[in-house]
């Protein structure tokens, strides 16, 4: 797997998918005008991962905020991770970190965890 790195901006998160550490990290805020274009490389990378048995991968979410359009794409990402995990070739673990004061983000993480059959840890920091 190649690495995928997209630097953070005011309205898009940092994407740091590293094939040495086997961590997929998304950090920051997501409110781009065009979510489809922004997240396409992420979805493409996940398609590649699905075709490449890779042992174990951790997905670490450190999202401070995301708009409703992003929430749809994040669901798409998590569903792809579920497919990968259930295929049995790469074990996925999702760790969702959130600011412990942000009960809205805690609720959003809980709702996502109910939707996908992947080991899912929700951590208030």
């Amino acid at each position, binding site marked *: 797997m190649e690495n995928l790195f997209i630097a953070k901006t*005011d*309205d898009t998160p940092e994407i740091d998918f590293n094939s040495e550490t086997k961590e997929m990290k998304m950090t920051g805020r997501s*409110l*781009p*005008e*065009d*979510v*489809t274009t922004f997240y396409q490389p992420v979805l493409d990378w996940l398609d590649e991962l699905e075709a490449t048995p890779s042992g174990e991968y951790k997905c670490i979410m450190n999202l401070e*905020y995301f*708009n*409703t*359009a992003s*929430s*749809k*794409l994040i*669901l798409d990402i998590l569903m792809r991770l579920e497919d990968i995990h259930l295929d049995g070739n790469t074990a996925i673990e999702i760790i969702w970190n959130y*600011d412990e*004061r*942000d*009960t*809205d983000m805690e609720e959003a993480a809980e*709702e996502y965890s109910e*939707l996908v059959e992947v080991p899912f840890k929700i951590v208030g920091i």
Partner: protein
Amino acid sequence: METALKEIHSIMNDEHAVLVYSGEFNQDIVKSMLSYTEGKLDSSGIDNLVKKKIFNVMVEQLQNITKHQYVDGEDSTIQPCFVLIEEDTYYNIVTGNPIKIDTIDMVSERIDKVNSLDAPGLKALYKEARLNSRISDVGGAGLGFIDVARKTENKLDYSFYDINSDNYKYFTLKTQVNKIIE
């Protein structure tokens, strides 16, 4: 000009306006408004979660305008607007934009539906809508009203005003973020 300025200033003062804007909306302008508001709210010492909710509602309402503001022909003099006002126990977030008359029914239905639901109902509606939605041509997911209703736990207040146009009315949306969250 001077009278108008005095009136505007007086209204803004009396109403405790945090931010008032009228004009074109695009992603850069939206980002500036968000950045300005965050700064202002940071120094006002309000609760972190309240600040987050205001930010959230602003993003959804402002991006809605950015996506749906375009008006053809001679009606394009009517500008969208945004107002953030601080009241005693809540913040009022108000947006206005021209809207095509033939979309009014759809918008009203959506908001009325959202207003008719309680928290569990909104959660279920959001889940279903998100699963079944696709990103539209203008980049929206059709989830904004539901999300704002969930985050604010208040009803959405809306109106359509006549603006002397055959094809457009002016849509205003007012939402409230409480200063105290239970």
